[in-house]
C-alpha cells in the first residue's frame, strides 16, 4: 500500500529566495505528522506545493500514490487543506459556506445536507450555523474552517499552524479534535512552530530548518537521540552570580554531569545536562548538601524537541525565530507568494 503522503526532493524558490531547498517526507496512513520549524523555514511552502496551490520547481509529490502534479484534481479530492488564516466570506452564514464547499466538491444535495448537519454537530456550530460568519469569534471561525476542510472526508487533512492566534481553550479543543480524527482513520499533517503542539499531538515529526529536513522520527526517538536528561537547579530564587559560578565549578567535575550552564535570563539558575540515570537528581542533591549549598528548587526533565533542534542547528527555536524576523521582509514575501502561487 502506498503511503498517505510522499514528498521527495521538493524544491521551490521565489526569485532569489530559496523557500524549500530540499524536503523529503513519507507520511503513513492514519498518523498525525508534524512539521516543526521556525517561521520562514519552508513549512508553508511545502504544504502549499502538496495542496496544489504552488507549483514546485522540482520534486515528487504523491497522495495515496497519486501524483499531485499529474493528477491535481484527484489529489484535491483526497486532500483537505486548512490555511493558517481563516478565510470566510463574512456575508455568508456558516451553513451557506458549507453548502458552497459541498458544491465545490460536487456532493449531491442529499448527501451534502446530511454531511453538513453532521459536521455542524460534531464541531458544535449548530447554534451559530445561520448567523453570518462576520459575527463569529476566533475559535468559532476556526471550527467552521475545520468543518469546511473536512466536509468531503479527505483522506489526508493538512493544517497550516492550526492553533496560531487561538486562545488556550480553543487550542486544546482543536488538539482534541485532531486526535479524534486520527482515531477515525484520517491522516493529519500539521505545521507548527510551537514545540508543545507537536509534542502533544504528533506521532512523528520532521524538523525543518532553512528549507531542509534536519531530523525525522517520533518525538521520543528524537529526544532519546539527543540523549541525557536536563536538571534545572535554583540555589535561591535569585542567585548572586558568584554563588552560581561556584556551584557550577563544584558540579562540573562530577562524572555523570555533561554540561552546566548558568542561565542569567532566569535568575542565574543552573541548567545541567546529565547522563540519563535514575539517581542523577539525588546525586546532585547530595553533592550540594556536602558543599553546604542551599536548594530553592530543583527539577529533572527529559530533553525537549527544542534540545533536538538545538543539537541539530546550534541554536534554539526562539533564537531562530528572532533571527528569522530580523532577516525577513514579510510584505515582500507575501507578495512573492501571491505571484508564485498564481
Amino acid at each position, binding site marked *: 500500500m502506498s503511503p498517505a503522503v510522499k514528498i521527495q526532493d521538493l524544491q521551490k524558490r521565489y526569485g532569489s529566495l530559496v523557500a524549500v531547498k530540499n524536503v523529503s517526507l513519507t507520511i503513513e496512513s492514519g498518523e498525525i505528522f508534524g512539521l516543526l520549524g521556525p517561521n520562514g523555514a519552508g513549512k508553508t511552502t511545502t504544504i502549499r506545493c502538496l495542496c496544489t496551490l504552488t507549483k514546485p520547481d522540482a520534486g515528487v509529490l504523491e497522495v495515496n500514490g497519486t501524483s499531485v502534479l499529474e493528477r491535481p484534481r484527484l489529489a484535491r479530492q483526497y486532500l483537505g487543506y486548512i490555511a493558517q488564516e481563516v478565510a470566510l466570506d463574512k456575508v455568508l452564514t456558516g451553513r451557506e459556506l458549507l453548502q458552497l464547499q459541498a458544491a465545490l466538491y460536487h456532493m449531491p444535495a442529499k448527501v451534502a445536507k446530511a454531511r453538513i448537519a453532521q459536521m455542524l454537530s460534531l464541531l458544535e456550530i449548530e447554534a451559530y450555523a445561520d448567523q453570518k460568519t462576520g459575527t463569529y469569534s476566533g475559535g468559532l471561525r476556526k471550527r467552521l474552517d475545520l468543518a*469546511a476542510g473536512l466536509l468531503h472526508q479527505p483522506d489526508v487533512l493538512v493544517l497550516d499552524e492550526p492553533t496560531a492566534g487561538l486562545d488556550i481553550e480553543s487550542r486544546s479543543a482543536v488538539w482534541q479534535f485532531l486526535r479524534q480524527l486520527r482515531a477515525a482513520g484520517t491522516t493529519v499533517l500539521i505545521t507548527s512552530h510551537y514545540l508543545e503542539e507537536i509534542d502533544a499531538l504528533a506521532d512523528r515529526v520532521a524538523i525543518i530548518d532553512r528549507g531542509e529536513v534536519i531530523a525525522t522520527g517520533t518525538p521520543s526517538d528524537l529526544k532519546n537521540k539527543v540523549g541525557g536528561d536536563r536538571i534545572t537547579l535554583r540555589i535561591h530564587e535569585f542567585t548572586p552570580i558568584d554563588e552560581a559560578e561556584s556551584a557550577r565549578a563544584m558540579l562540573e567535575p562530577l562524572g555523570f554531569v555533561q554540561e552546566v550552564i548558568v542561565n542569567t535570563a532566569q535568575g542565574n539558575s543552573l541548567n545541567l545536562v546529565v547522563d540519563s540515570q535514575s539517581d542523577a537528581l539525588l546525586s546532585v542533591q547530595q553533592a550540594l548538601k556536602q558543599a553546604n549549598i542551599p536548594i530553592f528548587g530543583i527539577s529533572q526533565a527529559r530533553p525537549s524537541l527544542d534540545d533536538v533542534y538545538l543539537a541539530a542547528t546550534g541554536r534554539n527555536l526562539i533564537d531562530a525565530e528572532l533571527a528569522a524576523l530580523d532577516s525577513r521582509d514579510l510584505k515582500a514575501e507575501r507578495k512573492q507568494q501571491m505571484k508564485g502561487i498564481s
Partner: protein
Amino acid sequence: MSSTITPAKNRQDSETASAVDSFSSPELLQWKATAIAAEQALPGLFSGEFVQETLALTQRLFIQLQRRPSTLIAGIIQPLMWLILFGALFQNIPEGLFGESQNYGQFLGAGIIVFTAFAGALNAGLPVMFDREFGFLNRLLVAPLASRFSIVVASALFIAAMSFVQTASIVGVSAFLGAGLPSVSGLALMALIVFTLVLGVTALSLGLAFALPGHIELIAVIFVTNLPLLFSSTALVPISFMPRWLQVVASLNPLSYAIEPIRYLYLHERWSLDSPVLQAPWGSVSLGASLAVLVGFSAIALVLIQPLLRRRIA
C-alpha cells in the same frame, strides 16, 4: 500547559470505533467512492460537475448582493444620471447632426447601455482579487473544480444579470425621455449583445485578477481602461464627428460593435444581419459582422485567460 496534555508517546486514544461513525456515514463513503471514480473520468466543461460548481459560485454572488444591495442601487442610479445630465448637455444640438436619431437622448441611450455593462464587467475581477488577497480563493483552488472557468462563468452570469437590470432601467427611462422602444426581437438581440460583451470583458478582468500582484494594480488597470475606451467609442458622438485617426480607433474599439447595433435596433423596427450599422473608415459594417466581432472578441478573451487560470497547477 503540557501538564494537561498527555504526551504523544504514551497516549492512549480514549476514542473508540464509534468515533468513526460520527466522522463519516455510509452515504458519505459511497458518495466519495463515486466522486473519485467520476474524477478519474475527468469531468470537463459541459459536465454536471461544472454546472453544479458554477451555480453555487453564482449563488454566492447573489447572496452577497441581496445582503449588500448598495452596488445594485448605485449601479442603477449612475447610468440614469449619465443619461439625464449628459443628455441635457447636448439637448439643443440641431436635429440631424446625430445621424438618424431624433434627439441626443435617443442617440445616447445605446452608448450608456453598453458603457454601463462594460464598466460592470471590467470591475468583475475586483471581488475575485479580494478573495485572493483574503485567502478565500484558496478554498476554490484546492477544491477539485471541473474547470476554473466556472469562476469566470459565475462572475459573467452575475454581471450579466446586473447589466440586464441596469439596461432595463435605462431603456425605460429613455423611453420616458422620448427615445422610443426597440421591437421585441430588437430587445432580445440587445440582451444577446450585452451578454456577449459582458462575457468577454469579465473574462479579461478575471484574467487580470489572477495575473496582477494585488488590487491596487487591478484598480489602476481598470482606471486607465475605463474612460479611454468610452471616449474612443461611438457612445457619445457619431463616428462622422470624429477626426480621421479617432475614427480608426473607434472602429477598432469593441464597444463600438456593441453600441452601433443597439443604436440601429432603437431606430429600426425591422432589422436583418445585413443591416449596415457602422461606417468604419474602411467601409460599412453590417449587423451580422458586428455580432461576429463581439463573439470573436469574447472567444479570444476566454482563450487568452486560460493559461492565467492554470498558472497555479491546473
